[in-house]
Structure formats: C-alpha cells, structure tokens
C-alpha cells in the first residue's frame, strides 16, 4: 500500500470529456439561455430604437446635437460662468451642471458636518442632547423631501424683509431677494496674497511633516491644527494687510428695486441647500451612529486603560474604525443628495434639470438628446462614486487571517 508523492501538476487541466446531451449540460444550457436573453433584449432595444426613429421622423422632429450651439435667449438668475441671454443652449447645460454641482457640494459639506454632530449627539450621555437629536432625526427623515423644500422656500421667503427693509450687517444685506454681500475685487498687488496662500499651503504640508518627525524624534506633540490655520489663513491675511490691502470690496447698493453689485445668494439656493442639508443630515446621523456603535466597547476601555484621553481615543481609535463602517453608506447618501438636488425644479433654483432638462428641452423640443445628456450626468456621478467606494473599501478593509 505504498503511496508515492504525486508530482504536483502546476495547473488544472480542462474538463474531462464525456458525451452529454447538450440540454443536460449546464454549461451549454447557460450558453443557450444567455444567447436567447441577448436576442430578446437586443430585439426589444431594436424595437424601441426603430419606433423612436420612425416616430421622430413622422413628426418632423430633427435629431442631433446641433441645437447646442443655437442661441438660448432666456435668462438664468444664477450662474457660475459667464452667461447672458445670447449664450448658447450648450452653455445652459454647463450653467445648469455647475449649479447642480454647487448646491450638491455645499449640501454635502454641510450635511456631513451636521450629520456627524447629530450622530455623535445622539450617543451623548446627556439625555436631553441625545433626545433632541433623536427628535430631529425622526422628524426630518420621515417627511418627503419635496415637502421640506417647499416648506423652507416659503418659510425663508416669509421670514425675510423686502429689499427696502433689508437687514444690514458688515456691508451685507439680507432680504427676500437673497443675501447681498460685498464682492472682493482684486487690485494689482493682490497676486502677492495668492502667493502667500500658496506658501501657506506648502508650509502647512512641510510643517506637518516636520511635526511628525519631531514627535517621532522627541516625543513632543506639536499643535499642527492651529499652526496650519495660522499658516493658511493668517499668512495671506498678514501679507494682505502689509501690502496695503490691495483689494476693494464691491459693496452692494440699493439701486432701484434691488441691490446691485456685490454678490447675491438667492433664496432658492438657500432653501434648496437648507432642505437637502437638513434632510440628508438626518440620514448621515444614523449612519454615523451605526458606525460608532460598531466599534466594540472593549476598544474604548482598552484605550482608557492605556491612559489615552477621550479626544485622542476618538481620533486614534474610534474614528478610524468607525469610518470603515460609515464610508459606504455615507457615499450613498452623497449620491442621494446629488440626485435629490434635481428637485430644485420645484422652486425655481436653476439646476441642470430645471435649466437644461426644463427650459432648454422645452424651447428646442430635443427630448431624447436632452434627457439622455441629463441622465448621463447623474449616471457618471454615480459610477464615479461607486468606483471610489470600492477603492476605499479595498484600501481600508481590516487585514485578517
């Protein structure tokens, strides 16, 4: 009964061959099924496409993207890039897209901050804080967002005074038309400030490295946070003052009906931003709470036993572990917020759906093109997010046996 050590074949061979009736072979079955599926699906797509084409032709609707270069002829109240009535429809796409991005990014930032505060507050040992935070969460996540957008819009409008009775502070004016603030206008010497700012950022980076090194070497802990703040904000400010403040402020002024000059934040933006922030923060708070609770209590005890103070424990032990749990649902919330910003159309904030898939579509009648472009934008955002999420998950997953 000897057994020789078999030579280790390095790689497996292909399947052993037997004659099998093809309908009994799962591999072939799967193949046939998939070919059929592709055929049916392809047929369906062909059906749709050919119908659409013939319908379009029959109704005399021209197709193509030529319309993007035609003059739009309508105004948009808020735009981050140069836009006038004489700009093209293509431009309205950019304007709408940027406005969507603007409200989404600002919404994401605010919702994250508020959500984290609420999530932590929900876990506070102060009963009142945790109850109030729970109250907030339960109220705002259980009411449709559209309703909340209406609410904030009309609440904001009702609460604000007319332009003539504006609330004035620091050269800014708050009224029903929005918040008009002085806009900085750079003068020739202002470039120095930009340079100082750049220096501040590089300095912060260098300082962080140095502080790390020094701590490694001497054990002394350097106040990195405060110093960074000083470098990034203080330094440019200092340069700005020393160089004789080479900047004028373009103050808003009440001329005629409205404030002119300066910059204005319109109430539609404020309402949408508030609603998105408040709504999403409730969900983020729950995510954060779940993440923090997922860190076992033993970790906190071990950190205390080692003498780590509460804040350090939070930064070094709890947050890194909670983040693994928090990040995936958090990215989903970001995605939801971005998609939800399309509700802007209900209150007249000029986002992509409102400006492009709304007015532009209506003026040009190019439904297929406009809607596909709009959907493609949201889809790419979501695909990018998923890619990021997978990458992050891989990078941060706990290493185990």
């Amino acid at each position, binding site marked *: 009964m000897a057994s020789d050590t078999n030579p280790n074949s390095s790689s497996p061979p292909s399947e052993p061959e037997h004659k099998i009736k093809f309908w*009994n072979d*799962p*591999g072939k079955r799967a193949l046939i099924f998939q070919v059929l599926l592709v055929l049916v699906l392809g047929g369906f797509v062909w059906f749709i496409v050919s119908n659409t084409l013939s319908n379009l032709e029959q109704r005399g609707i021209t197709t193509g993207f030529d319309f993007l270069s035609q003059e739009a002829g309508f105004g948009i109240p808020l735009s981050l890039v140069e836009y006038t009535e004489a700009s093209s429809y293509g431009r309205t796409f950019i304007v709408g897209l940027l406005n969507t991005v603007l409200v989404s990014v600002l919404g994401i930032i605010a919702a994250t901050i508020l959500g984290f505060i609420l999530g932590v507050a929900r876990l506070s040992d102060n009963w009142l804080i945790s109850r109030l935070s729970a109250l907030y969460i339960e109220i705002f996540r259980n009411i449709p967002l559209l309703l909340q957008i209406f609410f904030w819009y009309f609440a904001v409008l009702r609460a604000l005074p007319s332009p003539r009775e504006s609330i004035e502070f620091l050269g800014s004016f708050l009224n029903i038309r929005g918040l008009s603030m002085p806009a900085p206008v750079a003068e020739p010497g202002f470039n120095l400030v930009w340079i100082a700012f750049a220096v501040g950022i590089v300095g912060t980076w260098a300082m962080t490295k140095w502080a790390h090194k020094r701590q490694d070497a001497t054990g002394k802990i350097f106040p990195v946070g405060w110093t960074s703040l000083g470098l990034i904000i203080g330094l440019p400010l200092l340069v700005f003052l020393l160089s004789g403040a080479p900047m004028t402020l373009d103050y808003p002024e009440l001329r005629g009906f409205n404030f002119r000059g300066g910059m204005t934040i319109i109430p539609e933006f404020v309402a949408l931003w508030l609603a998105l922030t408040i709504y999403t923060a409730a969900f983020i708070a729950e995510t954060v709470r779940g993440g923090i609770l997922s860190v076992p209590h033993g970790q906190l005890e071990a950190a205390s036993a080692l003498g780590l103070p509460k804040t350090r424990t939070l930064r070094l032990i709890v947050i890194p572990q909670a983040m693994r749990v928090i990040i995936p649902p958090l990215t989903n919330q970001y995605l939801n917020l971005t998609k939800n910003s399309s509700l802007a159309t209900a209150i007249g904030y000029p986002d992509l759906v409102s400006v492009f898939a709304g007015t532009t579509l209506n003026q040009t009648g190019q439904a297929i093109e406009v809607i596909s472009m709009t959907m493609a934008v949201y889809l790419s955002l979501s695909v990018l997010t998923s890619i990021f999420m997978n990458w992050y998950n891989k990078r941060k997953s706990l290493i185990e046996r």
Partner: protein
Amino acid sequence: MTDAASNTGEQLMIELRDMNKWYGEFHVLKNINLKVKKGERIVICGPSGSGKSTMIRCINRLEEHQRGDILVNGVPLTHDIKNIETIRKDVGMVFQHFNLFPHLTVLENCVLAPIWVKKIPRKEAEATAMKYLERVKIPEQAKKYPGQLSGGQQQRVAIARSLCMNPDVMLFDEPTSALDPEMIKEVLDVMIELAREGMTMLCVTHEMGFAKTVADRVIFMADGQIVEENEPHEFFNNPQHERTKLFLSQIIDH
C-alpha cells in the same frame, strides 16, 4: 475483510479512478483511487486540510473534480445534469453543521425532498419520515423547528432527513465535531445502528472508537492523497507509514 477494492466480484457502490481536483492553482486531491462495495463502511481520517471533506463532497458533486472518474452505482459523474440528479438521489449526505432548514419543521425538513424530488405523495412521505425519526429516536420532535432542538437532536434529524430519500450510500463529514461531548454519543449510537443494518457509509471522523467499532476499512489521507488504507485493527495497531504513525500519536495524545 482486507483490501476490498481488489475484490471486483461484488457490486461496486462508489468508484474513484485517478481522480484529481484543483482549487484554482492549488492541487487539493491527487490521483485518488477508491472502491467502495455495497454495504461497506469506510472511515476516513487525516490531518486538517488533507482533503477529506473535498473528496466526499466531490462524490456528491458539491464540488466539481477536474480529472479522472467518479462512478456512483456505475453512473459516471459528469456535467450531465441527469447523471448528477440520479447520483444525488442515491447518495445521502450529513454535514458537520447539520444544515437543517430553519424555517421548516423537523417533519417538513424530512419530507421536502421525497415530495419534490422523488414525487412521493405527502402522506406516504410523512409515514416514511416518521419511521426514520423513530429510528433516530426523536419522533416526538416532529412538529418542532430545528432552532428548538439541541445540537445532537439536530444532527439526528439531519441523518433522518437523508435517510428519507432511501439513499444507497451515506456520506458523513465530521458529523460530531460541532457537538458537545454529551451529544456526540447519541449521534454515534444512531450511526452505529445504521452501520449494523448494512448501510454503505463513507464517514470522515476523528472518533476512533467509532472507527474501531464499525469500520470495514480506515482510510488515512494527507496532503491530498490516500496514504494508507487498512482494516481498523491493523490500522491502529500496526500503521505502515510514518505519516500515519505521527497522526495517530497526535490523536491519541489529544
């Protein structure tokens, strides 16, 4: 009851011929040859990771082998769904973790496959099931859910569930290793009785007492190969290979 595999006159239940299996690039089973006659009781042992589970899972096509042949009751295991179905009806399997269906009662667990696979009327299937539940000594638990039973009871239900399909062979993959010591015995008792009644059995286990009591042959595996194959008395008292000796010394120490 010596080398049964060379005895070709009797009916072969299971036959593995130069069977090989890879997990990706990893060669788990190397040229396995094994013949099991009807009514034979075989115990398989060996160190962890030696491929015992993989081997018996191949026999039931829970894993696919890549080279060589596996024949059960003369039917070759290939991609052919018909053959796989036939073989699964003939082969019962009991797992380490019972794998009872938690959403079904004990009785429902037992009649499910007879009704849906063998197309037996429910009445009849239930009668058979009760018979086997009596055999494993828990007829009174028939209406309970698996979650309400102890581990030993659950494993006995799992055995009864397999028996309800009237298999020709039973495969056991460490049926007692997830159990508390008190419960091991009740399961082994059932298995011993089964063996006495002449069921063909392939059993991966480290319960050497069981091997000594019922096995016709003991197979020792290491590194994906069958290293030694002998009748229990010889196997335990007079192991041939160094590897076997080492293994037995560890088992007995422990």
